[in-house]
């Protein structure tokens, strides 16, 4: 009897490994059905998290407050600079008659579960097709990109994280303009692959999405290079993946500036 189930499990494993969409509508329906339970269980857990950090984190809060105050001072200066730059940028765009791609809509969603396994890095979020979530959309946490939507149900969606071994995101090294692919490795730090051999990308360089392949918009912050050796270039994501409560899914509007202009 157990042997029968083992064979059945192996068959399921083979089919779902060969066809990534194997059992798709059913899987999404089951996930949708269990989402309310996970969401309900998640609420007291998050409340507990608030209390835990309130109890353990008083000293940490004080230091954080000091750091934030210093950072705020610094950012105020930058804010003024940014305002000037934006105005300048806009007037230059008008002068050159540049057609910018349209802005993006964001869908905010609550994280209700992770994968519960060290060999699959994903989040289950409480927003699905009925909220406009589609497969392939980029997902952002506080600091930057955390992954992309790989599966959608009616009320839930699964986000494959940057760190998962199956993740491949086309990116650009901001300072050098080199294109590369950010690949997850099931560890905390994803790596850059397909970087041009003569690239001068160095530690501290910002990595942003390149927009190639059309799934992600250009310029979303991803992370920064923190190590470069023979093994490869490792990137620390800006988004902290340890404790994410909410994420934003980027609903990219189609860039049709070219076709719109030419069509009668």
């Amino acid at each position, binding site marked *: 009897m*157990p042997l029968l189930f083992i064979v059945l499990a192996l068959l399921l*494993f083979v089919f779902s490994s060969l066809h990534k969409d194997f059992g798709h509508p059913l899987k999404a329906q089951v996930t949708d059905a269990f989402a309310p339970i996970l969401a309900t269980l998640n609420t007291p857990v998050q409340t507990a998290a608030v209390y835990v*950090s309130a109890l*353990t984190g008083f000293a940490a809060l004080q230091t954080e407050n000091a750091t934030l105050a210093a950072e705020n001072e610094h950012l105020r200066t930058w804010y003024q600079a940014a305002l000037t730059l934006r105005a300048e940028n806009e007037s230059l765009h008008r002068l050159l008659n540049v057609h910018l791609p349209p802005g993006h809509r964001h869908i905010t969603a609550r994280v209700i579960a992770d994968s519960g396994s060290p*060999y699959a890095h994903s989040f289950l979020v409480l927003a699905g097709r009925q909220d406009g979530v589609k497969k392939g959309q980029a997902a952002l946490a506080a600091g930057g990109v955390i992954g992309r939507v790989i599966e959608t149900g009616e009320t839930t969606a699964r986000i494959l994280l940057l760190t998962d071994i199956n993740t491949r995101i086309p990116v650009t090294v901001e300072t050098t303009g080199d294109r590369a692919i950010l690949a997850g490795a099931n*560890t905390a730090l994803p790596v850059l692959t397909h970087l041009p051999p003569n690239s001068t990308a160095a530690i501290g360089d910002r990595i942003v999405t390149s927009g190639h392949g059309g799934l992600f918009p250009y310029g979303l912050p991803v992370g920064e290079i923190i190590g470069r050796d023979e093994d490869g270039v490792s990137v620390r994501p800006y988004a902290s993946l340890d404790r994410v409560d909410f994420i934003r899914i980027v609903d990219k509007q189609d860039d049709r500036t070219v076709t719109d202009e030419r069509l009668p």
Partner: protein
Amino acid sequence: MKTRDSSFSKLESFSRLFLAQLVLFFLLLINLVPLPVPVLGSLNPAFVLMGVYYWAVYRPTLLPPLLCFGAGLLMDILSGGPLGINALVFVAVQWIVRSQRRFLMGQPYLVMWFIFAPVALGAGLTQWFLAGLSVMRWSAPLPGLIDALAGFFLFPFISLLLIAVHRALPGGAKTMV
């Protein structure tokens, strides 16, 4: 009156019988919900495996292979990994442990706890191997080994819950403590 009583007690024992499965379902859920504990939050100790292991030793009839398979498959679906991995691991663990239960039942709690270490390790390595096989790329197995270790140290806490449930079940816990 007498029949009513017996049907009520039937209902009670019926609901009590479900208690074990409910606890297993709860363990499955806490495996998926990110825990708020600073270090533990990034770990994924195999809570469900503890339930599967415990019931395979003390009440194998409560968790037949079909239920292990179902729990594993649900875990696979909700965790978003390839289907069949957890289903296979749970059924196999239940099968192997059940075949050794005559030996395990006579052992003191400490032995039962220590034997969970190779079980968790074996399960972790199987999950690592199959997850890699599914994409033909294997990541470092270390995180899974750390999870197995965390599972080993958390086993006493979860087994407290399981023992409490075991006592509440009709027949009670005869073999424990």
